[in-house]
């Protein structure tokens, strides 16, 4: 077959994907790089060059720092917890128990549920008459307000996120566990290591590459948290900015304040943060691997 014919065939097969990607990914990326230096008012149809002013405004904006703090806290708390729970559950399910298929099928359910349905369910669980609030009241005699308390609203979203992402990562860990050679466990067992010791000295180090994947995906996902915060706070990020996440604030800037240039600049900052954190995680995990 001639090169020309292959070229034609190749691009014919790629055409639908390429057209969509060019119009809806490449063009927006290039446009974003341009937009962040402008003050864009879509309603008035105006566009004024402002240089780096958008960035200056962002860094002197207390709401930006609130979003920064919330999202940072969110990543630091959610990622380690969900990774650990997923890893332990996967190890338990892998330990030749009966009915593991049943356990697995049940535990996977939260991952199937949309973030909107899940948020409503959790808002009801943590509502004034909700199960969790009633349970705490009957156990400790105090009525805790979760959703309206600025110190606790973000925690509800954190719990919800852990609840719905653990099953997916558990499956990823399970497939990783299947690749660990049984010889390693036999050797450890001959050396007198119990099951718990085996977990820490064989399973955890052997799962390192999978753990790296899970942490990276967790970090990327957590930095982008939006749906839950939006629905829980009705788009406001309240109470008192306590659920204002990075993405929610980008949304507010663009569609409530109608300041699309600044919103794009902030999205760009988010992109850079995600790249940097992923890079650092990568470096740290690789370093650990060498030491272990």
């Amino acid at each position, binding site marked *: 077959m001639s090169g020309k014919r292959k070229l034609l065939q190749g691009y014919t097969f790629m055409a639908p994907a390429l057209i969509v*990607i060019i119009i809806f990914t490449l063009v927006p990326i290039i446009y974003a790089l341009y937009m962040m230096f402008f003050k864009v008012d879509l309603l008035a149809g105006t566009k004024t060059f402002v240089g780096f002013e958008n960035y200056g405004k962002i860094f002197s904006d207390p709401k930006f720092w609130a979003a920064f703090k919330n999202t940072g806290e969110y990543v630091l708390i959610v990622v380690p917890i969900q990774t650990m729970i997923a890893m332990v559950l996967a190890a338990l399910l892998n330990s030749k128990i009966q009915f593991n298929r049943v356990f697995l099928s049940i535990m996977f359910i939260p991952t199937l549920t949309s973030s*909107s349905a899940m948020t409503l369910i959790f808002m009801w669980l943590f509502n004034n008459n909700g199960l969790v609030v009633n349970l705490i009241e009957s156990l400790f005699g105090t009525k805790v307000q979760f959703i309206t308390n600025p110190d606790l609203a973000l925690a509800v979203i954190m719990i919800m996120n852990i609840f719905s992402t653990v099953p997916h*990562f558990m499956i990823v860990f399970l497939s990783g566990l299947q690749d660990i050679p049984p010889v390693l466990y036999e050797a450890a067992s001959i050396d007198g290591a119990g099951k718990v010791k085996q977990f820490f000295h064989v399973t955890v180090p052997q799962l390192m590459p999978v753990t790296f994947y899970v942490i990276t995906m967790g970090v990327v996902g957590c930095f982008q948290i939006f749906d839950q915060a939006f629905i829980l706070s009705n788009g406001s990020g309240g109470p008192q900015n306590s659920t204002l996440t990075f993405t929610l604030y980008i949304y507010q800037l663009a569609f409530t304040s109608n300041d699309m240039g600044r919103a794009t600049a902030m999205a760009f900052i988010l*992109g850079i943060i995600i790249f940097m954190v992923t890079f650092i995680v990568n470096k740290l995990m690789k370093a650990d691997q060498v030491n272990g």
Partner: protein
Amino acid sequence: MKKQNNILKTTVYTILILYGLLTLVPFLWSILTSFKTTAEISAGGTFFPEKWSFDGYETIFQSQFPTWVKNSLTVSLAVTILNVIFNTMAGYALARIPFKGRQFLFSMLLMFIMIPSQVTMIPLYIVISNLGLINSHFSIIFTTMINITYIFMMRQFFINFPRDVEEAAAIDGLTRFGTFFRIVLPNARASLATQAIFVFMGVWNEFMKPLLFISSPDKYMLTQGLNALSKQYMNATKWDVIMAGAIISIIPIFIIYIVLNKYFLKSNDQTAGIK
């Protein structure tokens, strides 16, 4: 030693059963809530309904909810079909047709996977509005009809696909397109199914795009409708209505899950976790 093993086993089962319960209770509580009366809900009440009521479901079905379900079904099915065909074609070309520029395209696609959707969110909105697609379902269909992650997955699949099957088809006189649709696709059934499930679930559960692109209630997607529903009924503590909506929205995915369970749990694919 044996005794110690038993203790260990009991611990393992206990933890798994507890976590299983922890998973089920929120859903169970929501289902039960959807059958309670509003009076019972605002009074606090018990775990099980004191009096079973279908008011929540009645209210739901008299609202625009059925329209939202229909919208979500139509858009999700269209997006799924387009994704499966186009991602697979692109993946196939990247794996099997040695055309000029292939390597460059592939590395470009990999780069795009890493860019968070927020960066393109606002310019994408402007592109959509310039195309006149705001408040049209095509805005969602066009922007989700391709998924680079699955192009990548299909490429990996086709790299391992036996070449002689294709060569035999070519000798029998089939064109590249004929070979692709009649020989290659049927043999890729498992990965097509996996792809279809996750694409469908992704669109069905998508929240942000409908929020940005769709504005009139009769065009709402289900997730967006749920949000509207919660705004409308939350202050009246009509949680039975809200929970009925949430439960119905889960049912289609749940049916797919029960039928195609093996694809879900086998999927250690690198995609479902990415938003």
